[in-house]
């Protein structure tokens, strides 16, 4: 049962990662791409982390996985914000496709 739940979670997470890549490639300007990347990847990693946590039996491993997820979520949100600020100030945000 646990295996099935983990498999479903990990598969869904991977789909989100692929969606993020498609967004990075197909969206027209930097703000759309940022939006695709940070949201899809954040959710994808969260689902994969949850799935791996289901598989990992030891409390220590689960604790570390939660820490990693928390750090990545905070860091990628902050980095996305910084990149967006930078793009707006440098005037890079115009649509160019």
């Amino acid at each position, binding site marked *: 049962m646990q295996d099935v739940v983990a498999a479903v979670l990990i598969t869904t997470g991977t789909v989100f990662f692929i969606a993020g890549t498609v967004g990075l490639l197909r969206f027209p300007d930097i703000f759309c791409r940022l939006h695709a990347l940070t949201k899809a990847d954040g959710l994808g990693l969260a689902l994969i982390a949850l799935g791996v946590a289901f598989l990992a039996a030891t409390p220590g491993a689960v604790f570390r996985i939660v820490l990693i997820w928390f750090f990545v979520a905070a860091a990628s949100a*902050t980095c996305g914000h910084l990149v967006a600020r930078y793009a707006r100030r440098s005037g890079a945000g115009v649509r160019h496709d």
Partner: protein
Amino acid sequence: MTDPLVIFDLLLALAIVALAAASLSVRDLFSMIVLFIIFGLLSALAWVRLSAPDVALAEAAIGTGVTGALLLKTLHHLRFASGTLGQKAAYGVTPVAPVPMAVIMTNAVFCGLITLGLVVAFLGAPAAGPGFDPLVAEAMPQSGVEHPVTGVLLNFRSYDTLMEVVVLLAAVVAVWQIERGLSEAPAPAMGEVWQGFARLALPAIVVVGTYLLWVGAEAPGGAFQGGAVLAAVGLLLLLTRAYVPQPAHRGIARGAFVLGTAAFALVALLVASGGRVAFEYPLDHAKTLILLIEGMVTISIAVTLAALFHGREPVALAKGDRNDT
């Protein structure tokens, strides 16, 4: 059916070779650095697949993280801070006559021959021959730690590690000779989101670095990886100019640079004065001594890497003689 992991390995290997070639052939220097950073990340993944997590940690933290930041800083200097904003300065190209095609071809042929020789040597080498692992496994109970790599680094081959710390010291001495001056770049406006993140993340990174140092005795980790993670905090402080090096701080910095080497050498001398060979730690105190050395070396590495990133001795210069990055 072949194991899907083999396909993963093949894909990863192809990607690594392609990224190496692409990072050298792409025209834009910024893309070159980004490709190189990704190349480093993928190499670290490959080393994980070869069950070498220690090496992957060191490569990710030092070989890619710190080196990537250094390259970005140098590129920024080449493009904006040199005063000439022409195409030549932007690409950092040495003004030389174009190399004749024949020379390039000869170079390529010779490099190809060398690489081919390496391939032949690699394929002809006895696969999985006897290594040092039985010797190390036999000696581990006497090392004072449980993790073999740490045992090798700080006990069986301590001379190497001592010299490595000396190399770092020599590098920072050289860099301080090459460039001096106070950097006068204005503090970047990072915004409130960053302030909140920094307040939370910087102490967390310090904890992670200390944890890596501590766990090195029984699992992958240790002084170099921990030091590099702590250096990352220094990098962030320097970048956001939360800390600006002052001439008055040079004494403390110098002390931190030599701390690792001094502690390492002092322990060796003390052990030697007790009628033993240097680095033949007494078994009862081996773990304490190794952790002591590692702690001091970690502080040294963290401060040295941050200073290498800053890349200049903070001295007040006479007017008209300064450069700022």
